[in-house]
């Protein structure tokens, strides 16, 4: 034991000395654009996070392989594992921001909320594609945050609109009960103000079923309540292991699946497949294409996945979440391209990237040029509107895959926009002194 102790002592000293020598080096190539990706391939949200991470990394890697980067400048891609944990996310941010990071994609509403105040100080934009703080769509208050193509409030308004259509008009919602099951975190709580507003406007009753993050794999109590309350429709804001569990529980209590609608983050194939054959009819919002019938995706397969340069399982390509990750990277890449055009520089900074994202205009012709015709609705960012409230569609699980069942549905802009502006004002007041926008509008 004595020798053992000596050994322990020695190793502790050696470890301390060794650690002193290792200081994170800023490995930064001068002629490359550095894009850090905050991802999570571990932890309870990995089931969703892996597909997103693969999609994001693969598209950017494909641009490097096929075109030699963007505008002749390679992209340096670095993943940092956050585990969907806000503290680790901030640590990743601090560790990578010094390497001239262009943009951050936190992939967690919790991390996004922490990065929003930092973005304007460090002059690095935050791109929270279809998540994060809804109020960030107000570009006048949040010049550094982008949540194109839609905020959660847009999504929630589309769900209500769709339910209204099913009932033969929004006025028929009066007296109906709509259940809302959500991950009890910043993410799931985000749409509640809008849903409450719509509930009072159209006279339906909103029943809330919060699912705490650490108990998301045990939702029997929530679904027992659902069975008791018998809501006419169920709306879900779930992520990670919460989605398949909820669908399984819904099947178990024989909830009519065609009246169960998830947000675009509850639209994974694995999520729906967990419910087995009875999950048929489950619906989810979506704004990115499903399937592999796109030239860009074929290129990813050819240049990256089949070449063995990615951990992606070829089977998972073309899935909802994988394609969502690809769309995220398309927005990054187009932002970089727009910034290069605007500034005439090849190697960019975060400030250039902000301008690029603010002048993003992904029209149909451009999408077709990218090999992604029909992959997403054309989207445009303006200085006032960083989300754009773009139309989304609803897809249905047919037992094997998701099928698009509606056309593009426009969100209720007239309801959402005033609320967004009010929320932005409220945020600025609560976080006073909130910096006023000084960045010029590039458009």
């Amino acid at each position, binding site marked *: 034991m004595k020798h*053992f*102790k000596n*050994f*322990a*002592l020695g190793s*502790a*000293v050696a470890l301390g000395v060794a*650690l002193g020598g*290792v*200081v*994170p*080096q800023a*490995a930064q190539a001068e002629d490359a654009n550095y894009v850090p990706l905050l*991802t*999570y*391939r*571990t932890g309870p949200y990995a089931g969703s996070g892996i597909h997103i991470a693969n999609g994001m990394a693969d598209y950017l890697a494909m641009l490097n392989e096929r075109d030699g980067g963007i505008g002749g400048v390679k992209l340096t891609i*670095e*993943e*940092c*594992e956050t*585990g969907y944990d*806000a*503290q680790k996310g*901030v*640590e990743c941010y*601090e*560790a990578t921001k*010094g390497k001239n990071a262009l943009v951050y994609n936190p992939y967690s*509403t*919790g991390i996004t*909320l*922490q990065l929003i*105040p*930092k973005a*304007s*100080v460090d002059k690095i934009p935050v791109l929270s594609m279809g998540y994060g*703080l*809804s109020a960030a769509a107000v570009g006048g208050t949040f010049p550094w945050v982008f949540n194109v193509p839609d905020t959660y409030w847009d999504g929630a308004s589309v769900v209500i609109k769709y339910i209204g259509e099913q009932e033969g008009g929004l006025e028929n919602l009066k007296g109906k009960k709509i259940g809302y099951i959500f991950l*009890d*975190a*910043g993410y799931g*709580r*985000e749409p*509640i*103000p809008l849903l409450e507003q719509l509930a009072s406007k159209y006279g339906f009753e909103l029943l809330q079923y919060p699912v*705490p*993050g*650490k108990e998301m794999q045990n939702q029997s109590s929530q679904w027992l309540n659902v069975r008791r309350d018998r809501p006419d429709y169920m709306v879900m804001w779930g992520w990670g292991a919460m989605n398949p569990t909820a669908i399984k529980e819904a099947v178990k209590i024989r909830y009519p699946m065609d009246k169960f609608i998830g947000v675009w983050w509850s639209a994974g194939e694995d999520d729906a497949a967990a419910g087995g054959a009875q999950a048929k009819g489950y619906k989810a919002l979506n704004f990115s294409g499903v399937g592999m019938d796109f030239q860009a995706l074929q290129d990813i397969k050819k240049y990256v996945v089949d070449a063995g340069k990615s*951990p992606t399982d070829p089977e998972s390509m073309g899935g909802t979440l994988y394609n969502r990750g690809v769309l995220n990277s398309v927005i990054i890449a187009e932002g970089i391209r727009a910034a290069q055009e605007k500034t005439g520089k090849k190697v960019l900074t975060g400030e250039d990237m902000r301008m690029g994202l603010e002048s993003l205009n992904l029209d149909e012709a451009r999408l077709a040029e990218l090999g992604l015709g029909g992959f997403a609705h054309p989207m445009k960012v303006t200085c006032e509107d960083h989300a754009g409230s773009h139309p989304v569609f609803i897809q249905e699980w047919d037992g094997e895959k998701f099928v698009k069942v509606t056309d593009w549905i426009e969100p209720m802009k007239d309801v959402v926009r005033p609320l967004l502006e009010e*929320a932005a004002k409220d945020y600025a007041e*609560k*976080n*006073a*002194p909130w910096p006023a926008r000084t960045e010029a509008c590039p458009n």
Partner: protein
Amino acid sequence: MFYREAGQFKTSYKADQALFPILQDKVGMAVILAVAFVLIPLTANDFFLTSIMIPFLVFSLAAIGLNVLTGYCGQLSLGTGAFMGVGAYAAYKLTTIFPDVNVVFLVLASGIFSALVGAIFGLPSLRIKGLYLAVTTLAAQFFLEWCFIRIPWLYNYNASGAIEVPTREMFGVIVSGAEATPIARYFVVLSVVVFIAFLVANVLRGRIGRSWMMIRDMDIAAELMGIRPLQTKLMAFAVSSYICGVAGAMMVFFWLNAAEPSSYSINLSFQILFMVILGGLGSLGGAFMGAAFIWILPVFLKFIPGTIGLEVGAETVQHLTFMIVGALIIFFLIVEPHGFARLWQIAKQKLRVWPFPY
């Protein structure tokens, strides 16, 4: 040889009872403080300050807080995370109600709320001991976490349910919020930690600390000698929760800038408990060493593959870090169950007799 106290005579009671009676300790402490106050701010980059030093100091303070309760008074607690949360939410409410009051003062005051809550949840400790007490403090953890989620008044009815720290100045320097420089935040955190650590070190060797240790070592004997168990235990709970509350408030004000209820979950309680156990129960130095091991080591491990030029995926590094840290925890607990503080003592003994060990 290197650590010999021979020849250092104490000629007065004052010298004998000094906090650091030996010259080497005095010099060592002075060097550590010089490094912390001068060398690190001069040389460190932003990442080192914000992601390593500030969290390390915050966790050290929390570990000191839990050490007061578990290490010195012998009451096992799993509610540390929640008590830290009480401090954070109290400081947040205080700064929204009194925006003009100095934020450091508010952070120190927020500990009082945490102390009150801690004392209330410490009440069962008179009747319940050991692991059973751990279960009742677990109740505190779950109840308080529930409050953080379900009482919207605590987070000013924010739609996100998170508390976001506003920008606050102190003597014309911004110390909290996103615009605060890491250096300013580091100095505030360091000053508070050093201040509280010295305060606690002195409390511990006085009457109060000794009565805690008596309760820890044998509560019946302590009672027979005139220590009142209820007051003593409750005081330990209050002091411990006060320190944890201040640490929690600093965690959100000077490190994270925003916090969700999940930041103060049971995981945080366990993390702090591991720091205390690994560092050494009943040792202030151990609290710092434990915090360094649990917080700093994984951060460094993350960067090792990149530094030596290995191409490893981010998630593999994460898995490896988990495994290495886990294995090291088991290793150190097997070779030295009394923690790093004990290892340090052995090292001192070896330095004392080197090069002629007997």
